[in-house]
């Protein structure tokens, strides 16, 4: 069984560090889960090579969105399985593929990414994913309908924003109508089939939540998925993808926190869309996010075998490091960053002091000002001879590796400080003088 076990949890008041075993694979918290989504460069391959070259003790898990998986992930797993099957016919113990060994130690987690039924991006990929099986046809019908409406309203894009919301909600309302239950459950069942086949843990294909009604649907999808997973001797997380506006809705936040407290599953996965508490000065949102962190911290103190994961952590990642057990960020640093083409082919580079991505030119200057200091920031940095001289193709791989190594370094330090009882001081140190300074309001202790 793909169970999650919390082997050890050390508390430092509201903060903690845990050692987990997930589907037989030991990982340490806070684990940095790389969201792998690109084929240029091939990020699955890049993570594999990065782990082979560098230690990255706290990078032992990765996330793949289901709609990206048929292109970047499934073929790799199928290749391993086919190779194994064909070799095992002739050889008792065939030599294992190095990529297979890598997968044996890395926890793979799916992200269903159904918020992109609401957002405009990635719809083509979801459409392609849905063509994998007839049971996913409701998604195709919905996307086709959306496309037709978009075409009809191309002269008035503002109107389409409203239509988009109406159609999205109607899609889920229809699926939750009594006569459509079979369609809905078949879709859930088929998605869980893919998760079971390719990933270490199941995650419910829950809808995007931006209202009470959508929250109720998401709860139902969570509970159905968990029951189906249970019958297959699998564990399934509780998962909510929430629009940031719910942080302004005290009633809905209350319901969410209450649900998390009562929920008996071992892993809870949360994702917030359009949330940047650093840039947006909104004290209600910050207060409610702090309440969420505080509730998770209380749950973890009371229930040893519970773990929490944050997807697409964005600028909230630092304040979440000592609260969540797994924190996921895109290797491109900004979730949704696709614009490196605008900077002469050189994407943004992580600044470990500012805790923020910066233009390539700026970081090349930072490097030139103090190359030794730069090299001491982390193990990937130590191998960079001259940032400016890296060819674009190498640079765009190195910037991803460097970002991962920077988060890994902070996770290592955070664990050390939690064990020493100084986690709050270290968190303050990360935030102070960095671009994340406004988030000091969110320190719990």
């Amino acid at each position: 069984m793909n169970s999650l076990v919390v082997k050890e949890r050390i508390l430092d008041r509201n903060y903690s560090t845990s050692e987990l075993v997930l589907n037989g694979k030991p990982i340490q918290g806070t684990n940095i889960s790389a969201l792998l989504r690109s084929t240029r460069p091939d990020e699955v391959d890049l993570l594999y090579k990065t782990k082979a070259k560098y230690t990255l003790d706290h990078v032992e898990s990765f996330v793949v969105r289901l709609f990206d998986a048929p292109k970047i992930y499934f073929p790799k797993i199928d290749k391993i399985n086919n190779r194994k099957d064909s070799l095992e016919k002739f050889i008792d113990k065939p030599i294992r593929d190095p990529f297979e060994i890598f997968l044996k130690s890395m926890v793979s987690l799916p992200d269903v990414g159904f918020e992109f039924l609401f957002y405009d991006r990635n719809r083509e990929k979801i459409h392609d994913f849905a063509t994998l099986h007839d049971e996913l046809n409701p998604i195709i019908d919905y996307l086709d309908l959306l496309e037709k409406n978009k075409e009809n309203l191309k002269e008035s894009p503002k109107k389409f924003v409203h239509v988009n919301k109406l159609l999205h909600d109607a899609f889920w309302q229809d699926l939750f109508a009594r006569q459509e239950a079979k369609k809905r459950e078949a879709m859930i069942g088929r998605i869980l089939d893919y998760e079971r086949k390719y990933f270490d843990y199941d995650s419910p294909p829950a809808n995007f939540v931006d209202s009470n009604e959508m929250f109720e649907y998401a709860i139902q999808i969570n509970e159905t998925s968990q029951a189906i997973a249970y019958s297959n001797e699998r564990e399934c997380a509780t998962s909510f993808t929430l629009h940031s506006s719910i942080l302004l809705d005290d009633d809905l936040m209350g319901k969410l926190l209450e649900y998390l407290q009562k929920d008996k599953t071992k892993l809870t996965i949360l994702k917030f869309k359009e949330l940047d508490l650093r840039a947006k000065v909104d004290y209600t949102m910050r207060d409610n996010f702090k309440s969420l962190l505080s509730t998770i911290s209380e749950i973890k103190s009371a229930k040893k075998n519970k773990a929490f994961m944050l997807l697409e952590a964005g600028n909230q990642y630092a304040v979440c490091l000592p609260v969540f057990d797994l924190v996921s960020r895109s290797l491109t640093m900004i979730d949704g960053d696709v614009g490196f083409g605008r900077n002469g082919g050189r994407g943004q580079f992580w600044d470990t002091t500012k805790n923020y991505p910066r233009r390539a030119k700026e970081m090349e200057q930072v490097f030139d000002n103090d190359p030794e200091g730069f090299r001491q920031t982390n193990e990937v940095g130590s191998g960079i001879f001259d940032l400016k001289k890296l060819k674009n193709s190498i640079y765009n791989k190195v910037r991803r590796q460097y970002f991962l190594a920077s988060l890994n370094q902070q996770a290592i330090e955070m664990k050390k400080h939690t064990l020493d009882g100084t986690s709050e001081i270290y968190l303050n140190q990360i935030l102070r003088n960095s671009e994340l300074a406004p988030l000091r309001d969110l320190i719990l202790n």
Partner: protein
Amino acid sequence: MSPKIPDEVKLVSSETVKSWRVEDREKYIDKVIIDILTANSDQGLTIDDLLTITGFDRRTISSHLTKFVARGEVFKELRGKRLAIYRTNGQPVGKPEFVKGDLKDHYFRLYRLENDDGNFVYIQEREVDSFKRDNVKGVIKIRDEEMQEFIKKLHAFAVRVTKNE
């Protein structure tokens, strides 16, 4: 004494289960019944008990129990003329061992089983579909005292039939 419901059993309404795909529904009902029977193996349960706990339809419970009894996974014990008590075939001891066949879609699980009737080797043949859904296809249970004779006869039989081929 009221029946025990183990924590890991995820009970959902029978209305919800009815709308699932056949493969999900069958597997779920199997798992719920077996897990609840295992947790109550000391006193056993009646169909009515299972109906009260799960909310599944009586005929559904009955057909799943008939399948389990036929496969030897569940014992049916009659008390009086009509009351049937069901209990699992014993408690597996330790972790099962696995025997992989030549075909990738099936394998065997070997269990050590102990119950009031003695000690057994309990073998399940399981098949795995392309989505790693794992189902019991058949079972055999051999009592310790009969093991030597069984192996001897099985071996002789295998030699004879393969020679003839």
